[in-house]
């Protein structure tokens, strides 16, 4: 059996002293798209931030391996340079720093060497075209004054330029109208290939109509409680989370009693 691209092994994460993720395991192989679906408060964003090493999210147990190597002791920038990427649910603005300057620095950091200007411009132009974006966009300051849709597109623009091997998308569909959703999904699909993996974290199924997942997992109270194929997402869309959550609760109750 080959080494998995990305592996989460019995992960526990605290925010402050409160356990939020409580024993989550998952494996994503190259070429796969996984979806984690969960109701509000199930630990979706905590998981996403912890995987990139946000200092406020403390891993208390378990492991995260990238191509077989544990990355939990590494700083966020080191994880990023390895090829891990997080598309933020709420990207932070950095006033005074132009997108183009930021993107060029980020691409250079990812490569481990300065990208030549001409090459960068060509890549940038191609990525902008894919996302139906104007070149003026990259003259603006990073996320500063962006609309919700612009912020999400900017994240996908970075995904396309940085070419990570493992991309975690934290509620990338939230706040998008149907046209923007389609464009963003096209961007993700254009990026996706045999050599990379994607973990889509979402509340709703609608994104999954455009970016088709190989596996769907249901997250509840910090753990994966059900896994299946695309039909699981359809079931959630039709019935909501309650029936599954009740089933799980009943089963756990039965074990406990």
């Amino acid at each position, binding site marked *: 059996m080959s080494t998995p691209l990305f592996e989460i092994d019995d992960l526990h994460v605290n925010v402050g002293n409160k356990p939020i993720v409580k024993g989550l395991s998952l494996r994503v192989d190259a070429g796969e798209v996984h979806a984690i679906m969960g109701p509000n408060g199930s630990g979706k964003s905590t998981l996403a931030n912890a995987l990139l090493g946000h200092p406020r999210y403390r891993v208390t147990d378990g492991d995260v391996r990238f191509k077989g190597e544990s990355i939990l002791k590494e700083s966020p920038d080191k*994880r990023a340079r390895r090829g891990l990427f997080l598309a933020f649910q709420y990207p932070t603005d*950095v006033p005074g720093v132009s997108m183009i300057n930021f993107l060029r*620095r*980020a691409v250079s*950091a*990812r490569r481990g060497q300065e990208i030549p200007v001409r090459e960068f411009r060509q890549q940038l132009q191609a990525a902008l075209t894919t996302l139906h974006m104007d070149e003026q966009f990259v003259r603006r300051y990073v996320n500063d004054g962006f609309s919700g849709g612009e912020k999400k597109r900017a994240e996908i623009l970075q995904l396309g330029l*940085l070419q990570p091997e493992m991309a975690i998308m934290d509620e990338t569909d939230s706040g998008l109208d149907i046209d923007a959703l389609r464009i963003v999904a096209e961007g993700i699909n254009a990026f996706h290939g045999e050599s990379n993996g994607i973990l889509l974290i979402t509340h709703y199924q609608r994104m999954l109509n455009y970016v088709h997942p190989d596996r769907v997992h249901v997250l509840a109270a910090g753990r994966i409680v059900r896994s299946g194929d695309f039909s699981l997402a359809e079931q959630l869309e039709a019935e909501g989370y309650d029936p599954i959550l009740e089933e799980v609760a009943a089963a756990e109750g039965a074990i406990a009693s």
Partner: protein
Amino acid sequence: MTTASKPPISKAAYEFGFHDKEEALLKLPKGLSREVVNTISDLKSEPDWMRELRLRGLEHFLERPMPQWGGHLNDLDFDQIHYFVRATDRDEQSWDDVPDYIRDTYDKLGIPEAEKKGLLAGVGAQYDSEVVYHNIRKDLEEKGVIFMGADQGLQEHEDLFREHFARLIPVNDNKFAALNTAVWSGGSFIWVPEGVKVDVPLQAYFRINSEDMGQFERTIIIAEPGSEVHYVEGCTAPVYSSDSLHSAVVEIIVKPGAKVRYTTIQNWSNNVYNLVTKRAVAQEDAVMTWVDGNLGSKLTMKYPSVYLMGPGAHGEVLSLAFAGKGQHQDAGAKMVHAAPSTTSVINSKSLAIDGGRTSYRGLLKVYEGATDVRATVRCDALMLDDKSRSDTYPTMEIDEKRVSIGHEATVSKLGEEQLFYLMSRGLTEEQAAKMIVNGFVEPVIKELPMEYAVELNRLVELQMEGAIG
């Protein structure tokens, strides 16, 4: 607009900390007295009215108590300062005639080279107490533009000089303006005739060389109706173990429809007290802009002001303060709206790092009857660590109802979310912090001539190295 001299910004820790062997022709003994003031006036062969003003300045200075607001001034010992140091007895118009050891200093600072490239319309160089070199482009001279040392201005244009000297900043304005009036020496005298637009900057370079030195230059700029001029000043000094004092006075008259921009890059060494009074009057439809960069000094107290006296006048202060270890930058701005339909913008950015302290101190005043005034004040402070300190002291006195005033002040620490966001894209913590800081100062930096902007960014980055992470 652009200048090409090496901006007075250090590439290493403090690149300008060197000093020449002191070869002063004349150095008055330390301390201040009527005798010292009289001697200065004698040396300059001044008219009596100036001597009398000087002596009045001395009286006011002695009478007034040391200010107990702003920065800590009580360690400043006025008896330990040389109030006048003459390096050479000539103000030359060719660098070849400037004494070699002084010329060397300015070569190191890149001034003659910049002038040769034709990127400056005029250059003035003050070394200790006096202007040792000044020159102006011939075509501007032919159009009647005056750009010379202030002492020469007094000698050659006495009436014009007298009309404007100590008018905006009277002798008794404040303790340090009074001191300057008593012992002033050097500075620039600029007069731009009606309708003449000086297309590239005039630059003055102030250098303290002697130890325990006080530099007290006096600058007057008069822009006749419809004229335009940009004046850039840079300041550096050697690093000595004892303190030096720089206390300048600048008065600017911007007549109807004229535009003046005054850019300062102050990078004194960290043993210099920098206590400066700067004031401008903007008449009808005139525009006055102060761009004020404070990087060096031990303590700076400086609040450039614009008095908007005619309808349609516009004033701006864009300032950037950077306080590192042992430094206090108490800087700000004053805008006084005394006429209707006047507008103003204050945009202040300050950075404190490694135990440094920044304070924004500002006044916005609108007199009754000054209707349809639009004014915005924005001051942002960023602290890069827990040791540093930042305060804001904004004062507003609005005596007219029909006005539109905007005010915004932020004090923040380097943001965890911003750092995480940039680091999640592969930037190291240090790269991320630098990027955030460069973005923070961008609104002021982009107003600077290109070379200054590049150097300032680099300086900010250098100062941050080691202090972050």
